[in-house]
């Protein structure tokens, strides 16, 4: 890195990767990419690349952890060692543990766990390349994997990170914007119910900035939600009209 201060947003409001302030990175979604799980999805948001897989409902091991009236939702958010600039050693870091928790709580908010007592639903998110917004892209992928697995839920979950960079509110922070910006706020919603299932803030925002950032996030979320729905519909579009 040279000594000049890196300019993340130009005079004309163009970001370091050529995007406008309210522009999402290119989004690619594939469903059913892994065979052994009950449901799976692959999401690319710019250079961020993530797999998600769901197993369940299945038996709980050890048995004594099972709940009598509902399923347990387990979630593991994990990054490969080569997904980041500096190699990450194997094993779970504290960040991965925290993110596993908030993602699990987001999904628990929408999955109808009471339909499968004494079972577990296991969600695995594997980040193979991290360029910002991994927990939100991971959640977007996990929601699709749950849908493919046929796990009943209230709505799909779509998520994105908004933030503040050089005084401007921006949508979908990439890694460098997250590192050198003033605020990073990941948000996940169930758009149909207009409810928030994940919300965190790392940084500082005025109340007005928070309101505007939320509006910006909602726009991004609706775009992602539409893509999720289009991809799901396309996958099943050949469905024949036979007696099921």
């Amino acid at each position: 890195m040279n000594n000049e201060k890196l300019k993340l947003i130009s005079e004309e409001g163009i970001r370091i990767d050529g995007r406008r302030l309210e522009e999402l990175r290119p989004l690619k979604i594939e469903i059913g990419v892994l065979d052994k799980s009950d449901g799976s999805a692959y999401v690319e948001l710019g250079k961020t690349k993530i797999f998600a897989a769901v197993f369940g409902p299945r038996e709980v091991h050890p048995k004594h952890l099972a709940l009598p009236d509902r399923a347990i939702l387990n979630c593991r958010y994990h990054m490969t060692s080569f997904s980041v600039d500096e190699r990450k050693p194997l094993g779970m870091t504290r960040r991965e543990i925290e993110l596993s928790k908030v993602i699990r709580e987001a999904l628990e908010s929408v999955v109808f766990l009471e339909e499968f007592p004494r079972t577990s639903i296991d969600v695995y998110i594997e980040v193979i390349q991290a360029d910002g917004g991994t927990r939100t892209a991971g959640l977007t992928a996990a929601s699709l994997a749950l849908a493919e697995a046929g796990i009943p839920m209230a709505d799909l979950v779509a998520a994105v990170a908004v933030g503040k960079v050089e005084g401007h509110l921006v949508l979908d922070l990439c890694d460098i914007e997250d590192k050198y910006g003033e605020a990073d706020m990941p948000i996940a919603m169930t758009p149909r119910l207009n409810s928030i299932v994940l919300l965190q803030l790392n940084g500082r925002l005025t109340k007005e900035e928070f309101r505007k950032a939320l509006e910006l996030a909602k726009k991004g979320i609706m775009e992602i939600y539409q893509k999720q729905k289009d991809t799901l519909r396309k996958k099943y579009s050949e469905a024949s009209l036979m007696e099921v």
Partner: protein
Amino acid sequence: MPLYFSEREIVLPGQLLSDDSKRSGEGTYVLGGKVYASTVGFATIKNDKVCVIPFKGAYNPQPGDKVIGIVIDVKPNGFEVSLGRHLTATIRIPDKKEVQALNLKIGEVIYAFVKESGLRGVFLETGERIKKITSGLLVSMHPSKIPRLIGRRGSMINMIKKETGCDMLVGRNGFIVIKGPSPTNEFAAVSAIKLIEKEAHSQGLTERVENLIRSILAGGAENE
């Protein structure tokens, strides 16, 4: 009732289906007086209720279902049988002599009927209703695709049996036992099952399955 979907439309979780909260069936949920889809599937009206038939869903045993299971535990008062995935069923036999007479061992495969299924668990009928399967090829497919394997009034499964010359026992829980005159015939049946699992929702499937079986039997497709 006012509906927001067309018959057999593909719906997604969270999609609004109707305003009549009193008529919500499987695959849906009620919120604020409205009915929404809870899984990906076909929306339809069944027994005057709005339902979503999921493309994939966990198997929920119903009394009378025919299932195939693997014995996983032997107890003084019965047996435990795995029906695959998260399901373990129980055969409850209070009479110790009867338990011994049935003589089921761990790893043994049985064909049985579901007696009851509820909060207390899944129970299988005992006595003569249990058939031991001592030979054959055991394969599994996702239980939600079994209806497609059977087909309308058995059309698909009967075609496969006829074309491959194999005996096939199908468990509603996704386990299938195949017994055929030769390994190639059995392989043809397994390949048919795999194709149906992969393409359960596409058009013209019956014809494609038939063609696949014929090409395997003709010695053509050795590698699938």
